[in-house]
Structures are given as structure tokens and as C-alpha cells.
């Protein structure tokens, strides 16, 4: 574990009894108490995650708007300062470099939040495509990011003495808020399918902010939550995870994030490829008896037609589920099974997302 990268909250994870694992080169906890308990805390009260491993890449300069507009699938024309937008960076063949969250500060100042394991690859891709009137700055090591997720997040913020404006609308953010004396950028975003915020602060302030939020949430049902619950939460909400539902081999159209692909935009990298008729789609399966995980063969009417991209329990719904990539055209009455270690496990096709908050 010694050679792994540590987030600014490493000591907090150890003190909280986190079960540490190697997550893409980062030492991070997979659970503190129980993945299912942590999962349920987020659905019913609140959970606090360390997501400082995520990358923060700033795009600065007069060419920033045009550059990003060409770099990603979504349209940033309608973004005003203080807004966030989900988008995908694609290769010319449509394959995904990464999925990103874009924060707009000004026409010449944006932040892209990228997946930890992809940070260097993304930087290389961004730099390779960046024109002269754009400056790309990797600020990842300077920032800590905490995700405070769950219906009681506002209660926790207030109990922690939050000073400033809590972003009211989804996918917006506010700057220069103060919690426990720590200056934070706060966005109404998350990766759990639940209401909540993500807080960005300076790396050196992370321990203070984390401790203050945990203390404030103690009587509100807040639990420290780790990667295991982050995965079951996003899985249950059927949000794609790069490397699983989306990758260089699975493009965003196949992944089904159509809301983030704007073909009305005259040009962006990968546009032509993504406009071709889609041959594959992502579907949801309820696993009726057994448990499937990623990369297992998926059979339709007894023939292998695809593979699972994620699989596991959906703790808030009960039962086990899987997401799979299968042909774009499949009959309504198809019979689905997943090959789990040579056994055909019966499944039922269900709509995505599995879980939707009321």
C-alpha cells in the first residue's frame, strides 16, 4: 500500500477504520462499517464520501469556449457562470476518452472534473487537441473533493454552520462558501442518484472540513461512506461508470446517455461516428436467481448476444441486477439469461434506471 497515492483524507480513513484497497493506484476505503448500511444511509439520511482522487483540469483563455465545445458531446452554449454540465469526450471513432463534469466560471475559465484513473490520459488528449489560445492546467493535487449525498444534506450543512448560498438548482454551483472556516466551492451534483452536493476545498483544508461535516451529521444519521457504497448507489441509479458502461469500445450512444449528446452542434470530435445508426444498446436486467458481475456473457433466447458491464445487488430495491450491452434491436419477448460460471441464470429485462428517487 505504501506506493499508492493518498488523498488528503487518508489519515481520516484509517482513523475511521476504513478497509483500504488499491483503487486505480489510490489508497481508498472500500467500506467503513458495511457497504449496505452506508448505501442505505445515503438513501434515507446522508453519507459523506471522499472523492478527492477525481481530477480537476482547468481550461483557461480566450479560446476555452470554442475548444470545449469541440472537445465534448454536450452543448455548452447555454451554460452561464455557476452551471455544471455532464458531457463525454470522444475519440474520432466515437469511443469515449472519458465522461466529465464541466464547471463554468467565465467564458475563458472552465473546470473539467475527470475520472481519477483517466486523469493523465485525459490531460494528454486535451493537450494534444488544445489550440494556442487555451491554457490547460491540472490542479488535481491542489483540490480535495467531498460528496455529501442524501435527503438530509442541507440539514448537515446547516448543522455544520454553513455560511453562504447552497446551490438551489441541480447542476449549479456557488463559490466562497464557508464551513468550519474552510472556503468551499459547492455544486448540486453527485453520483448516487440522490439529492446532495459536492464540496471542493484546498487539499490542506480537507481534514478540517471532513471532520466538521461528520460531527455535524452525527445526530442526523450521516455515515462516512466509501467506494463500495458509491458503486452500489451509482449502479442502482444506473449511472454509467467509465470502464464499465462506457469506454473506448463502448461509445456514449450505445451507453444511452443521449441527453448529453447534442447532434445539433455542427461539430465536435466523434460526431460523425456517433451519428451512424446504433448497433448496440445498454439494457437493465433483474437477475432472478443468483448474482452476476461485470464481463459475463449475456444470452438472448439461448444465444450469446452481449456481455454484462456491471452487476450486483441493488440494496434499496432488494434483489440483484445487471446492466448489459446487447444488440440495438431485440424482441420484446426475448428470454434473457446470464452465464455465471457456466450456469445459465434466468433474468428479466427491466427499465433503466433501476432506482429513481421519488
Amino acid at each position, binding site marked *: 500500500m505504501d506506493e499508492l497515492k493518498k488523498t488528503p483524507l487518508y489519515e481520516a480513513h484509517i482513523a475511521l477504520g476504513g*478497509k483500504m484497497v488499491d483503487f486505480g493506484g489510490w489508497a481508498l476505503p*472500500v*467500506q467503513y462499517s*458495511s*457497504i*449496505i448500511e452506508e448505501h442505505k444511509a445515503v438513501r434515507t439520511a446522508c453519507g459523506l464520501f471522499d472523492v478527492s482522487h477525481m481530477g480537476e483540469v482547468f481550461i483557461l483563455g480566450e479560446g476555452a469556449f470554442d475548444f470545449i465545445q469541440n472537445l465534448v458531446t454536450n452543448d455548452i452554449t447555454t451554460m452561464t457562470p455557476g452551471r455544471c454540465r455532464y458531457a463525454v469526450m470522444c475519440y474520432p471513432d466515437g469511443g469515449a476518452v472519458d465522461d466529465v463534469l464541466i464547471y463554468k466560471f467565465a467564458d475563458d475559465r472552465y473546470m473539467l472534473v475527470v475520472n481519477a484513473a483517466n486523469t493523465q490520459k485525459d490531460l494528454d488528449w486535451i493537450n494534444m487537441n488544445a489550440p494556442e489560445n487555451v491554457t490547460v492546467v491540472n490542479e488535481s493535487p491542489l483540490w480535495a473533493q467531498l460528496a455529501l449525498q442524501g435527503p438530509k444534506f442541507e440539514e448537515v450543512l446547516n448543522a455544520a454552520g454553513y455560511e453562504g448560498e447552497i446551490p438551489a438548482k441541480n447542476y449549479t454551483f456557488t463559490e466562497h462558501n464557508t464551513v468550519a472556516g474552510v472556503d468551499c466551492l459547492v455544486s448540486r451534483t453527485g453520483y448516487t442518484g440522490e439529492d446532495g452536493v459536492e464540496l471542493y476545498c484546498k487539499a490542506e483544508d480537507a481534514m478540517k472540513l471532513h471532520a466538521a461535516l461528520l460531527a455535524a451529521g452525527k445526530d442526523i444519521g450521516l455515515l462516512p461512506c466509501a467506494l*463500495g457504497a458509491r458503486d*452500489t448507489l451509482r449502479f442502482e441509479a444506473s449511472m454509467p461508470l467509465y470502464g464499465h458502461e462506457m469506454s473506448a469500445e463502448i461509445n456514449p450512444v450505445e451507453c444511452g446517455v443521449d441527453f448529453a449528446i447534442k447532434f445539433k452542434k455542427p461539430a465536435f470530435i466523434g460526431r460523425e461516428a456517433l451519428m451512424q445508426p446504433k448497433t448496440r444498446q445498454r439494457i437493465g436486467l433483474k437477475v432472478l436467481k*443468483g*448474482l452476476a*458481475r461485470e464481463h459475463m456473457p449475456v444470452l438472448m433466447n439461448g444465444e450469446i448476444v452481449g456481455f454484462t458491464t456491471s452487476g*450486483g*445487488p441493488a440494496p434499496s430495491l432488494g434483489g*440483484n441486477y445487471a446492466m448489459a450491452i446487447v444488440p440495438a434491436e431485440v424482441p420484446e419477448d426475448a428470454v434473457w439469461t446470464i452465464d455465471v*460460471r457456466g450456469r445459465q441464470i434466468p433474468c428479466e429485462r427491466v427499465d433503466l434506471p433501476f432506482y429513481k428517487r421519488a
Partner: protein
Amino acid sequence: MVPNDRKYTRDHEWVMVEGNIAKMGITAHAAEALGDIVYVELPVVGDETAIGESYCVVESVKASSAVYSAVTGTVTEVNEELDAAPELLNEDAFANFIAAVEFTEINEDELMDAEAYEQFCAEEE
């Protein structure tokens, strides 16, 4: 903590022998290491198993783990309760067996008593 009415394997399984029937399960230590158990792929009555062979797969939220047999023989009973309530293994792994096997062979030499197993766990930490 570890009951002394049975024997233990190095893979953190327990085996309790009554006559020619061996009841088998996983230890609390194993259940704790696995975390929340969400599915148990039980064997079927009549299945043949052998010493060191996987006769069951326990699925936790994050991982699949094979459970190995301490005996050679035929499955005579499975704990169907685990089908609906796999979390029983987290709640009390020693009170919930996985399968009972009518055996012809048991690897006595490899098995540990409670005291030796506790020491084995302590050394593994």
C-alpha cells in the same frame, strides 16, 4: 468466540462431524472479511464433492468467494434458508451451515481445532 464443537480449515471453513455426516459452513472470520453477503450459490442435494473442491460460492457485495469442502462424499442436505436470507452468514456464521455431506473421507490431518484456528487467524492478521 470460535466454537470448539467442530474443526476448521485454513480457508476459514468449519466442519462438524456427526457419524458419517459432515455439516459445513464458513467461519465468522470469513464472513467478516467478505462483508455483506448477498447471495449464496448453494449446492444441490445429490451433488458429489471432494476434499479441497469448491461446493458453494458465497457472493458479497464486492466479491465472489469459493467455499471448499473438507470431505469427500455426497450432499444430503442444504440450508435453503440461505436462499432467501444470505445475510444469516453475516449475522451468525457458526449457527448457519451451508450443506451437510455424507462422507467417505475427511482430511483430519489438515483440520484445526478451535484453539489452533484462533491462533491461525491471529497470525494471519
